[in-house]
């Protein structure tokens, strides 16, 4: 009975749309973890700093600049498709690239 009520309450358009996703990028041993392969506009990256050092995730084009204290989690949501190379402001050898595809909706 409860299941029937739940199905009736969900609008049809919500079933068809793809919900925004959250992908985690973890820093450990002075390296960014792998970038998610299927990042789309509207998705969010959760940055997790597992190191004992303060790091940053700073886009080369400055479109995002996240300070990451040890053990902290921070979030960046992407509103524009594109390729975003980024690095740690303090440790220039730490780099990565995020590729944001157009929304799937």
């Amino acid at each position, binding site marked *: 009975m409860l299941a029937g009520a739940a199905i009736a309450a969900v609008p049809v358009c919500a079933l068809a749309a793809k919900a925004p996703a959250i992908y985690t990028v973890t820093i450990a*041993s*002075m390296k960014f973890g792998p970038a998610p392969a299927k990042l789309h506009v509207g998705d969010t990256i959760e940055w997790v700093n597992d190191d*004992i*050092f*303060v790091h940053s995730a700073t886009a080369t084009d400055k479109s995002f600049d996240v300070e990451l204290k040890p053990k902290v989690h921070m979030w960046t949501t992407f509103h524009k498709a594109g390729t975003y190379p980024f690095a740690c*402001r*303090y*440790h*220039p*050898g730490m780099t990565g690239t995020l590729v944001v595809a157009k929304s799937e909706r």
Partner: protein
Amino acid sequence: MFKAIGIAAAFSLAAGAAYAQAPNDAQIAHIAYTAGAVDVAAGKQALTISHNKEVLAFAQEMVRDHTAVNDQALALVKKLGVTPQDNPTSQGLAKGGADKLKTLGALKGAAFDKAYVANEVAYHKTVNGALATVLIPNAKNAELKSLLETGLKLFKEHQMHAEHLAMSVK
């Protein structure tokens, strides 16, 4: 004798001593800790003298990062029941660091910035070499070795950051 000894010379002492007697874990811990402490002191001095935003950010990073590693080193030696052992290499490092503080302390403005950053490049290069060729290979305890390897990664990043900075404080 130690007056003339540079940081590189201090480390070559340790390397040379490896043929007679490699540094033990207690000495290695002491050397690594001292190397970090010297850079923390240099960073703290830079924070009181420099007015350059990028140099100040770099100095803050040195203080922060080396304090973090040294805190871990302290926790590790406590856990292992090891007392860091003073030795000629550590003494050479400390003396070299103190001499540098004196030299840099007499400088101001752009002259200070240039000299501080140049020294940071050289210092990190030297310590990297020592970590890779003396301290890590001779470390017996696995956790100490692992922490030294983290230290090496860090020192390499610092060296890179210092080299980038050196190009802009010319």
